[in-house]
């Protein structure tokens, strides 16, 4: 029966030693260990959260960059398009103006040519008339040397007029 009979001496020693061990372990071992574990867990959690946040932010920035790049691309395209349009417009305008100018120049040239022609014609006419007068004078001088011939001519002229 000694097996299941508590022994008072051992009981006292056990209470004393177990109590002391509990007290010392709690004070010098468990408290710092549990505190360190908790702190480490907190730190790990915090760091994980921070890493996640940084990752999110980076993604956001990357997304922003992409957006900016896309915008820039569109802008560039627009600018190119505009430039092209302007270029085409300028060319078109220049062409148009050149055409008008050319036409004007041609017109003017034609006009002056016409005028020159007219002048030339007039000149020729004048000269012709002068020449014809001279010729007529000469012919008349020559023809009207005698009276017969004068008569003859006058008759002939009269006839001509009649025919006209």
């Amino acid at each position: 029966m000694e097996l299941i009979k508590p022994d008072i001496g051992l009981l006292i020693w056990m209470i004393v030693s177990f109590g002391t061990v509990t007290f010392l372990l709690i004070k010098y071992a468990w408290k710092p260990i549990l505190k360190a574990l908790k702190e480490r867990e907190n730190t790990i959690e915090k760091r994980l959260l921070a890493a996640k946040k940084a990752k999110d932010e980076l993604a956001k920035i990357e997304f922003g960059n992409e957006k900016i790049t896309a915008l820039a691309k569109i802008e560039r395209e627009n600018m190119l398009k505009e430039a092209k349009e302007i270029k085409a417009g300028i060319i078109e305008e220049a062409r148009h103006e050149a055409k008008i100018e050319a036409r004007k120049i041609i017109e003017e040239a034609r006009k002056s040519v016409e005028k020159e022609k007219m002048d030339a014609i007039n000149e020729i006419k004048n000269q012709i008339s002068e020449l014809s007068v001279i010729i007529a004078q000469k012919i008349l001088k020559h023809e009207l040397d005698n009276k017969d011939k004068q008569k003859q001519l006058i008759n002939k002229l009269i006839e001509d007029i009649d025919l006209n």
Partner: protein
Amino acid sequence: MRRSWLKILSVLLLSLFICNNSLAQDHSVENDSLGHKNEVKEKFDVGEFIFDHILDQYGWHLFTYHHKHITIPLPVILKSKSHGWNIFLSSKLEHANGAFIEKPLDLSITKNVFAIIISSLILLILFISVAKTYSRRIDMPPKGLQSLLEPIILFVRDDIAKSSINAKNYERFTPFLLTIFFFILLNNLMGLIPIFPGGANVTGNITVTLVLALFTFTITTITGNKVYWKHIFNAPGVPWWLKAPLPLIPFIELAGMLTKPFVLMIRLFANISAGHIIVLGFFSLIFIFGNINAVAGFAASPISVLFTIFMSVLELLVAFIQAYVFTFLTALYFGMATEEHH
């Protein structure tokens, strides 16, 4: 982690082999010595052999060599009204004379007390050094001993304390649960080592388990909140006539308060003692057969050793399971005592 366990396991197995050998020598020689003393070959007494190892002793018997008992003498401390304090070494016990009139108060440092002191020192040195490592290596991964013990500490904290006690209170109880877990575990394991400083049947001693249960009971009772006491004296949802003239339910609940630690005490004591008794029983088969016939003794020894090894490995498992069960139930009782009313 796994490698460390393997290391521990292999060391334990090795020590088992060694112990088997030393015990074998020990007892065959002891047997001889007894036979020598009485001039007749005395029969091997299994009960005496087993209880010699299970029960507490005044000295710490290591082994017997050439008919000589090699024992660590431990102080015997007695106090009586007639003789006052008497302190002497256990080696002088046989020669001590003088009878006490009444039964003296025995405060001797017995084998178990000495084993408790040794294991307490091991616990203190181990965990205070680990705690120092923790405060030195802040926010760094565990290293060395720390990495062996951290999973167990986390297991006790998360799977025992946190799962049984509510979130507000579990941190308050975790240190005690850790103490009780490692105290029981270390003493269970040291009980499996048959040579000094192991071999004392500490957790298989009813006084030791009584004290452990007493601590649990005291803490449960002190920390018990209103809900806990109300549940005992005026359990909700129970018809009044079970409580009013004859306080049947309160009586049962009060008895339950006491049975809980009582069961804790019996469970640990019985499991560890039974394991030791079976191991020793298997082992003494060699000497029982050897007493009949030397050949039979030799024939029985391999089987007996095999059984002993099997039981020792089982005991190793039981050492962990019992430490876990005791701590887990303690945590459950703490949880009940501090449960908030929903």
